[in-house]
């Protein structure tokens, strides 16, 4: 990515003041920082991560709020174009984040739905309700299509396809870059060749690594490491 929202904190002071009245304790700057984290993690992890609907909702509200403020600013005011730019940049990150998620849902839909089905009652859902609806429709639409064009014309024992077997699963063994946010001890690293043995490493705060996603997936989920 060429651009990062380095100056996401540039939201004007009036806005920050107004924000304080709301229940949410996040400042706009923190909110955008959270979005950025979620965005990078989602972009670089091979599998779909837990949904952050609440965060998305807050950012959407923030965007609308900024749009409203913008309406009040006089046309041609330099401040207006700075704000406009800020809105565009936040909207880009938000769209890109949601796009990454939707792409993975389409790519892995049978597995994503299976995971959702086998989820224990108390566990958090990986899909937002809207994403869940989308994934279900995508599966149904695709099955109807395959059936209508070809499968129903095939011999009786071949008229269905197990989509779980046909569509590949995310490759959790792929390597990812990461930065450590909270120090971790005794991370078990699997051997790469027959001559190697498994070994443990400590991950120092602020250090960067290249590792198999599978090894550190729980740390991504807990927020202890950031994919970069």
């Amino acid at each position: 990515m060429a651009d990062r929202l380095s100056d996401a904190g540039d939201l004007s002071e009036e806005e920050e003041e107004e924000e304080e009245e709301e229940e949410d304790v996040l400042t706009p700057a923190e909110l955008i920082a959270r979005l950025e984290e979620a965005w990078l993690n989602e972009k670089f992890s091979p599998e779909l991560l837990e949904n952050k609907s609440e965060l998305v909702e807050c950012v959407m509200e923030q965007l609308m709020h900024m749009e409203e403020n913008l309406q009040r600013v006089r046309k041609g005011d330099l401040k207006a174009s700075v704000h406009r730019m800020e809105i565009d940049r936040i909207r880009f990150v938000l769209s890109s984040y949601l796009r990454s998620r939707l792409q993975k849902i389409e790519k892995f839909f049978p597995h994503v739905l299976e995971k959702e089905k086998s989820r224990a009652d108390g566990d958090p859902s990986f899909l937002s309700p809207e994403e869940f609806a989308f994934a279900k429709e995508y599966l149904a639409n695709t099955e109807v299509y395959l059936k209508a064009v070809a499968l129903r014309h095939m011999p009786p024992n071949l008229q269905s396809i197990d989509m779980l077997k046909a569509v590949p699963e995310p490759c959790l063994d792929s390597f990812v870059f990461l930065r450590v946010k909270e120090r971790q001890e005794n991370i078990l690293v699997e051997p790469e060749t027959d001559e190697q043995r498994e070994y443990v490493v400590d991950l120092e705060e602020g250090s960067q690594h290249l590792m198999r996603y599978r090894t550190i997936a729980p740390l991504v989920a807990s927020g202890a490491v950031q994919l970069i």
Partner: protein
Amino acid sequence: MFCEKAVELIRELHRMSDGQLPAFNEDSIRQVLEEMKALYDFIYIFDSFIISHNSATEGKSELIPTIKFRHCCLLRNQRCITAYLYDRLLRIRALRWEYGSVLPTTIRFHMCAEELEWFNQYKKSLATYMRSLGGEEGLDITQDMKPPKSLYIEVRCLKDHGEFEIDDGTVILLKKNSQHFLPRWKCEQLIRQGVLEHVIS
């Protein structure tokens, strides 16, 4: 040899690795399906032959390799057709993201009726999803494909497109070779469709 036609379908798509959608090859699909029927009928005849000669267990086991051979061919044909159709869906999906929800007729012409139906359903699902994101209007995530650098960009018109309304209600005429300074957000799709060209000085 069996399954040659089916692999031809796969080669046809593989040759166009950039994601273009070739015409739906109805004829080849039909031929593969016919071959499958013939293979199936053959196994069926063999099966009933075995059943009717139940006493002759010797004959039965002799035929198993042949039945297995035919079954492999059936599965292969099924795999090729499914992969052909599925890969086409991935291409059709890409069209929604690159062209927007209205496709040029030349491309629609390459799709079979069921594919058009799939495309329409996909469009609907995507629209429903995007509408559900925040506010009344939702969020169009097929826009903003690249990080913005500036609010306004210089664009050149590559073909006559007619009138075009920008945010503040101003209407401008997009005439071939004319140049404009427009809000980036409004132009993204027209640039992707090749109507406008982003000029960088």
